[in-house]
């Protein structure tokens, strides 16, 4: 057991999965000698060499496209797209091919690959380095979309994603990379993709969040407990697609109230799908309209205005109070 931050925890998963399976390769821009711009792939190149840890030319579409080819051959590439904001240059390879080869070939081929992408704001970065756009991937049939919220589940979910027979888009929140350390077991550990976790329990309200917003939801829950005497279920979604509707519905059936927090823009965002799932499964238990706290439907406004855009504890607490007072 070691205390690791998210960067080190993800690195541990990669190290161990490459050790475990010679078909696992890492490919991306600056992932080799440099160890990745966030150091997630540090030392992999030294340990496994340049055939397995590939410093690719600077071209997102071919990083994903060649990885699709490698996966069709039977390898298990782990691609790094340096920032999720650049993934639109490979979006067609993800949507048209990675997600579809199993179906197109009627099961003759499948594409076991992981597409790692740093995402999210709050790090005083420029446009294309601060967005949260998980909804695009969650909407694609054939793809899985995973977002860990900390070192331990980050490590376990990345290992699970690498072992998964289907393509997985794996978002890593940049603000979480060095945010905190957790005990991470030395022995390999995985978690089930497709399962949400109830990270704290309560009776009055359900807070649903993931990735960088989980911390905001947890702090909001603490504030509500201390200042209002309100107890919350806080759900860490972890897998955006396929969504664990059961865990969310079970919680809201108990509490009757839900606030969904996400960093993606509101309209047509993942919160809409979560809300629809609650309507389907817990309509008769609802005591108030489902609330969403999200970024606004604007392009990245620049980090000088970012604070007013990304959900914070005060906005979540405000939405929760309105919901509770309904």
């Amino acid at each position, binding site marked *: 057991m070691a205390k690791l931050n998210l960067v080190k925890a993800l690195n541990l998963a990669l190290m161990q999965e490459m050790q475990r399976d010679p078909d696992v390769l890492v490919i991306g821009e600056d992932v080799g000698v440099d160890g990745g711009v966030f150091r997630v792939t540090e030392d992999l190149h030294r340990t496994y060499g340049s055939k397995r840890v590939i410093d690719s030319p600077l071209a997102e579409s071919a990083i994903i496209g060649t990885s699709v*080819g490698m996966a069709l051959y039977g390898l298990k590439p782990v691609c790094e797209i340096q920032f999720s904001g650049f993934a639109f240059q490979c979006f067609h390879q993800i949507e048209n091919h990675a997600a579809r080869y199993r179906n*197109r070939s009627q099961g003759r081929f499948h594409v076991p690959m992981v597409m790692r992408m740093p995402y999210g704001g709050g790090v005083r970065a420029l446009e294309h380095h601060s967005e949260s756009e998980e909804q695009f991937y969650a909407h694609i049939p054939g793809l899985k979309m995973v977002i860990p919220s900390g070192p331990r589940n980050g490590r376990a979910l990345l290992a699970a994603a690498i072992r998964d027979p*289907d393509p997985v888009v794996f978002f890593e929140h940049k603000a979480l990379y060095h945010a905190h350390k957790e005990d991470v077991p030395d022995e390999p550990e995985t978690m089930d993709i497709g399962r949400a976790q109830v990270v704290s329990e309560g009776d009055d309200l359900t807070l649903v969040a993931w990735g960088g917003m989980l911390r905001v939801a947890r702090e909001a829950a603490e504030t509500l407990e201390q200042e209002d005497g309100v107890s919350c279920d806080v759900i860490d979604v972890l897998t955006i697609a396929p969504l664990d509707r059961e865990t969310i519905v079970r919680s809201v059936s108990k509490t009757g109230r839900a606030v969904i927090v996400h960093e993606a823009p509101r309209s047509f965002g993942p919160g809409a799908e979560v809300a629809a799932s609650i309507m389907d499964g817990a309509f008769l238990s609802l005591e108030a309209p489902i609330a969403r706290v999200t970024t606004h439907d604007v392009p990245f406004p620049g980090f000088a205005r970012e604070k007013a855009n990304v959900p914070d504890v005060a906005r979540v607490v405000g939405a929760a109070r309105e919901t509770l007072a309904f």
Partner: protein
Amino acid sequence: MPRTPLEPRFTVEYLSILDAEGNLDSALDPGLPGAELKRLYRAMLLARRLDERMVRLQRQGRTGTFAPIKGQEASQLGSVAVLRPTDWMVPSFRETASMIWRGWPIEKLLLFFAGHLEGGQPAPDQRDLPITIPVSTQLPHAVGLAYAAQYRDDDVVVMAYFGDGATSEGDFHEALNFAGVWHVPVVFVCQNNQWAISVPLKKQTNSKTIAQKALAYGLPGIQVDGNDVLAVYAASREAVERARAGEGPTLIECVTYRLGVHTTADDPTKYRTAEEVAEWERKDPLTRFAAYLKKKRLLEDGLEAQVDEEIAAAIARFEATAPADPLVMFDHVYAELPPELKAQRETLAETLRSGEPGRREKHEPSPPMRGQRSGRR
């Protein structure tokens, strides 16, 4: 400081072996045995007859939109014929001849164009990717396959097909660049058929040849007469041998012509002249190869009837296929069906069982597609 020319200097060659009358340049003869020449001609003829038949099937509403290959038989068969079954073939959407050579049953291709995904499923031991429709996006896959083969130290070459239009796409350039940097065993075969739907080559690129685009990526490029099956064969054999020997990728530009429509939804009289088509018809790859074989006394009698019979039998098998079971749409989305999809599948299954709304009546005709007759006969 003076300007100094950089070495090496680049050249692009053009290769032609059989002229339009079927006369052989014997110095360049790839020296194929008679049986192989006969096999190639039979495959070209089968592809031509099938192509014409497939257009008619679409017009009759028995299949959907189809991209014919008429005129491109030599480009496809001259190249694919040099592969071993253990090599990989990566098609775009206009490679009927190459696919049949690689063992795709005709009825499977018909199924594909009739909207059944089962028609796109390669056999378990077949090293072909299914048809890829978005232009040029299959080229990085070919490079990835070649990288993987090299990584595993397998004796494998990958051949990838695309058209002249594809060379304007980013994926073409990214794929050639990666292939060059990685030095992987891949052969890029461009069927330059002069027209990307309605856009002629001169509006597609300002390069004099497509072959020369390889030079920018540090790989050899060669232009061949794509209507000359022997020239395509010779260039492809050389490229595949080079790839197999660890000498890296090659780009082959086959200069050919799409004699028919882009797809059955297209009307080429709108954008090109009858004179231009007639000029290319004089350079028909089948006519010249037949003339050459005739001189060599290798042309078989009754071949046309033979291939027609093979096609008719395949069409009969295609038409005997059971109707598509809608529930199969859930079978190959994920390795394991997630709960939500399981629920969607159950709902559809229930709807189908009860014959409730949402299910199209069995004999209700679909609206006609572009290029199809509006009434059923």
